[in-house]
């Protein structure tokens, strides 16, 4: 009995911490999502049942717009980052000159804080003073409105993300490639397999589980897209680059409509859970 109490005593601080920092905020935000609460005007909380959720799905085109943009964003950036990461990892896994230099160089963008990356690119793409714009102008691309054309700006944002996060894929895939047993490659060579066949029938199947894991981690992270939007476009032009998390932030911390923002957060959480579950099932299948 006493032994049990001691165990419980050791567990208690951790449990209390978990309750306070994770469980309580979750329950509190779920409760708030059933309320209308315009906190900025010190208005009282009013219970509205599932009205916030109904509004999200039936009366809020901005939610659908931000969801559409976020899904498209995640699909494009994760695919491109995976492809480029794989290519770079394959090249730098070979014995080429300055291999270590390039390995370090390609990791640099990932080391920078995302908000710093955002402001750096905002300055680089400034239409009046940005160095990238000046270079592109000198190449005759002076009519391209990189940050102010609603059709183009989402892709500029994606390009920055790809620049920043391809190293993540590269790092994970390179580490995996270096852990593969050399005997497999030797055997394939003895069997007369070409480089392409070795890649396709040996390397790729071995990489698949780690690729699914990397895609899962990166997709969840990309889904939470915030800093690049905040720092580069502010969601604009119009709402063309407004991600779901940026929209939730706007509702919560610009309009202080805390009930609606909590409802949006829960919808967001459910979407991420569904996506993660799908990828995890896929991972289990591969493993």
């Amino acid at each position: 009995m006493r032994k049990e109490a001691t165990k419980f005593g050791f567990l208690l601080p951790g449990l209390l911490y978990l309750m306070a920092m994770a469980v309580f905020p979750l329950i509190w935000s779920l409760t708030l999502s059933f309320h209308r609460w315009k906190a900025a005007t010190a208005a009282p909380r009013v219970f509205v049942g599932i009205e916030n959720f109904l509004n999200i799905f039936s009366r809020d085109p901005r939610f659908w717009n931000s969801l559409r943009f976020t899904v498209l964003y995640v699909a494009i950036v994760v695919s491109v980052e995976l492809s480029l990461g794989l290519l770079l990892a394959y090249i730098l896994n070979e014995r080429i000159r300055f291999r270590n230099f390039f390995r370090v160089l390609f990791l640099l963008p990932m080391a920078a804080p995302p908000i710093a990356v955002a402001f750096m690119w905002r300055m680089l793409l400034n239409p009046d003073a940005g160095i990238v714009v000046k270079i592109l102008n000198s190449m005759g691309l002076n009519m391209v409105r990189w940050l102010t054309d609603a059709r183009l700006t989402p892709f500029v944002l994606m390009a920055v993300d790809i620049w920043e996060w391809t190293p993540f894929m590269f790092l994970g895939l390179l580490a995996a490639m270096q852990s593969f047993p050399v005997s497999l490659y030797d055997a394939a060579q003895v069997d007369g397999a070409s480089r392409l066949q070795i890649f396709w029938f040996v390397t790729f199947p071995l990489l698949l589980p780690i690729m699914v894991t990397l895609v899962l981690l990166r997709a969840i992270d990309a889904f939470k897209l915030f800093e690049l939007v905040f720092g580069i476009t502010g969601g604009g032009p119009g709402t063309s680059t407004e991600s779901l998390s940026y929209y939730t932030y706007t509702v919560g911390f610009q309009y202080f409509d805390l009930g609606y923002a909590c409802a949006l957060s829960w919808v967001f959480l459910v979407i991420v859970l569904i996506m993660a579950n799908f990828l995890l099932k896929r991972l289990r299948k591969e493993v």
Partner: protein
Amino acid sequence: MRKLLWCVVLVVLLVVASALAAEKTWESQPGEFKGQTITVLITDPHSAVVESWKPEWEALTGAKVEMVVVPYASLYDKMMTDFITGTGAYDLICWPSTWAGDVMGGGWVLPLEDLMEEYGYPDWDDVVPAIKLIVSWGGKVYALPYDGDCHMLYYRKDALENPDYRAKFKEKYGYEYNIPPKSWEEIMDISEFFTGWDWDNDGETEYGIAFIAQRKTQAMWSYLDIAMQYAAQPGVAPFFDPDTMEPQVNNPGWVEAMDVIQKLTKFAPPGLLSYGYSELRQAFVSGNSAIALDWGDIGILEQSPEKYGSKVKGLLGYGPLPGSMKTYDFKAKRWIEGYNQVNFLNFGGWVFSISKFSKNPVPAYKFATYFTAPERSLLDVCGIHGYTGANPWRFSHFKNIDKWVEGGWGKDSVTKYLETIQTILSDPKAITDLRIPGAAEYYDYLDLYLAEVLSGTKAPKDACDAIYAEWVKITETHGKEKQKALYRESLGLPAE
């Protein structure tokens, strides 16, 4: 003997009373706040004001001033989060008075009557009436004035006053434009005329007009400059019908203004949609456009070629907002033909308030009164302290021309500049900005759909309809009757 004793007591009492009275002054005293720290929440460039006075005030009082400088886009959430959580991290907050409905109406800041009565205030009669209005809510003063805000028109005299250009314009458009331009119809033609060629012979292509157009950087006030002319009449605010609280933002006047601003983007520099207030000011004083709309700040930047890269010192003319040749009467639901010009107090001006959670309200009050006193605040608005974001708001600021000249201005320039601002601020029919609870949210939706119009992804009418739908929702969320009462009160209309 008894009489003598009473006399002594009386004298002692008088001495003590006068000594106490002498301590109770708005002017800070040596060592009076030794060891205390006040925290100021502020944005750039207004932080320049606090930075200017902080060392002097700290040395005088022994207090310490800590500044938390945030970008404009984050100010509202930083401030409100502090209020809602009751943290009290900031004692003194510099905020735009257009948020009065939330900040004052929400009861988040201290009413200042008690402090003003106890310590006095540096020359209240010197404050322009329009500015006194914006620091008040429900008849009580909740903020200390610090900035007089209204948009005005800036134009390049070397372009618009050039006789050759005027002749060519007349040949092309069949009329002579006014200087300063009087209407948006004229502005459209002038902007088109001066777009795409090197009219100041500096080897670079120039454009017609520049204004704030970037999302979340106050672009909606550029649009409101136009909407006020097509959708309002002097003294008649156009935001809602005060009898029904029906938003007016999609009536033909507002739609026409949206159409005008969309067309103007064709005559603006290529980077227009990335122009926040800082970018606009920098671009305009570097000489890339013939016309710009802004608060008084471009005038300050104009004077400093060394510090702000101004290439237009002495080349700028100033004028009130252009009017329109027709305006929509939302009550009669019809257009009124004829010239209409409305002065609009965009933004209302930045003000300083003391958080109701402040643990140091007295030092905060005395620090704010210290730098907003007539002689000191003059240095912040006239350019001597550089670009601070503060524009003239006291009668004395408009009189003391010598200080402005000391701040880098030419005498003629500053006379015209001050004349323009004073005319707008003292116009009894000038329309005050939207000040009801949720103003930040109403304006964010205006800003959002305006951005879509400016980028060409939404038609003006569709955008105005979308804003209307959002404004209806926001009004419902806050309570229609409550909003109506507050809106009427903000317009000085009697309660129903």
